[in-house]
């Protein structure tokens, strides 16, 4: 008769804690590399989003009720003064707006004479910002519209004053917007005063930096930077940022230029998601591949 050497079931606890730890750590690191390096886990992210979404809906309800409630009880006086301000603003823009169709037609005619490509009409839809992502390493917000409303990744997002970012991820009922202050977002701009073209990229602290501008370039604090429209993602001419400080070190070939976004990038509630641009077909010889919407570097 052989003695049974196995421990009684009371003491069988599965793998040791250390084995479990190494299993889960390996799994986490694998996920991390697959997600950041190869972007291979969008499906898993979508699935997990569906799990987290009901919890988020519940979590947002009281905060939203508080916010909407306080809006509801706004004093009459505030509303009246706001109404008066809006009327004045409308009167001020009314004259310019009335001439807009005429000017647009004239512009179109002149463009035809000059054989320039017709400039795109821009339209879009308004969306509400649901919440800001908690991740301290990035600047992202979530919108309350998603694939169900026809949004696609790559669409520019702006508010009343200027550009605030780009849609980078799409969920059925939500969309992730990377703000222009995020370190991983770079967009081509042009100085409105001199026409100097360059790039801005976020610094992660609410400001952006204007890159690759020679130290002797004509740029000074107060200059407005607008989108140049060269990337085929952002329509040209939208205000992006205003130059705040210019530092010309003798050791650097490039000037260090800090600019502050003109839009209320990090505090707003309703934004406009613009339609993606329809690019003309690329010339056959220059680029064999059709121009794709520019993707973000990194994630």
């Amino acid at each position: 008769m052989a003695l049974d050497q196995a421990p009684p079931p009371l003491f069988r606890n599965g793998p040791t804690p250390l084995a479990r730890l190494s299993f889960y750590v390996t799994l986490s690191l694998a996920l991390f590399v697959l997600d950041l390096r190869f972007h291979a886990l969008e499906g898993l992210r979508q699935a997990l989003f569906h799990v987290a979404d009901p919890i988020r809906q519940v979590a947002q309800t009281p905060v939203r009720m508080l916010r909407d409630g306080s809006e509801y009880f706004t004093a009459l006086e505030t509303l009246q003064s706001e109404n008066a301000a809006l009327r004045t603003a409308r009167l001020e823009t009314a004259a310019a707006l009335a001439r807009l169709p005429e000017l647009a037609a004239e512009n179109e005619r002149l463009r035809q004479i000059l054989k320039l490509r017709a400039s795109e009409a821009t339209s879009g839809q308004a969306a509400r910002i649901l919440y800001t992502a908690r991740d301290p390493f990035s600047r992202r917000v979530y919108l309350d519209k998603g694939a169900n409303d026809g949004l696609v990744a790559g669409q520019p997002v702006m508010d009343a004053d200027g550009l605030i970012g780009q849609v980078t991820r799409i969920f059925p009922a939500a969309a992730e917007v990377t703000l222009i202050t995020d370190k991983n977002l770079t967009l081509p701009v042009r100085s409105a005063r001199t026409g100097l073209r360059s790039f801005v990229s976020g610094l992660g602290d609410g400001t952006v930096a204007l890159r690759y501008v020679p130290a002797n370039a004509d740029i000074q604090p107060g200059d407005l930077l607008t989108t140049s429209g060269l990337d085929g993602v952002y329509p040209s001419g939208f205000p992006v940022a205003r130059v705040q400080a210019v530092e010309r070190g003798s050791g650097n070939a490039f000037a260090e230029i800090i600019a502050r976004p003109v839009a209320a990038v990090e505090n707003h509630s309703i934004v406009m998601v613009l339609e993606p641009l329809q690019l003309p077909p690329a010339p056959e010889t220059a680029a064999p591949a059709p121009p794709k919407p520019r993707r973000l570097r990194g994630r």
Partner: protein
Amino acid sequence: MFATNQSPRILKPVKPWFIVATLILALLLNLLPLQQWLFMPDWVMLALAFWSVREWRHVGLGWAFALGLLMDVADASALGQHALAYVLLGYGASSLSRRLLWFSLSLQALHVLPLFLVATSIQAAIRMIAGDMFPGWGIFVTPFLVALLWPIVSFFLLIPQYQPEERDENRPI
């Protein structure tokens, strides 16, 4: 007196649904859209550490991993970032559990503070390896906040286990 291993008090066994409910509540608190407040404590970290210390048979590393993945998706951070931090936190907390319960609540908070600091540093380190910038020392306020909340939350999470089995007028508790 608070129920540590030194007190004569005997706790009722915990109900598994209560653990699940508190973990989901912690997730809910983390998902509150209050990010304008710079220093929101990481409630999931706190609840997870608490249950890993008290009930390491119920709340294992699988829970830590799953909650971490959910936080990753909810925060729009890299997949695996919170998961890794929470798994290491859960392991550390459960291996501390036999020692920790001999101390008073404030000393317990001092013991778990390094765990929270490590969990936060790991998230920062792994993102910096991946090429992100250091987001500033502000991120290390959260672990201290969580450690400060430890005694309070410990008290509240143990309330159901304090209730007597049946009410008895002649018995003091």
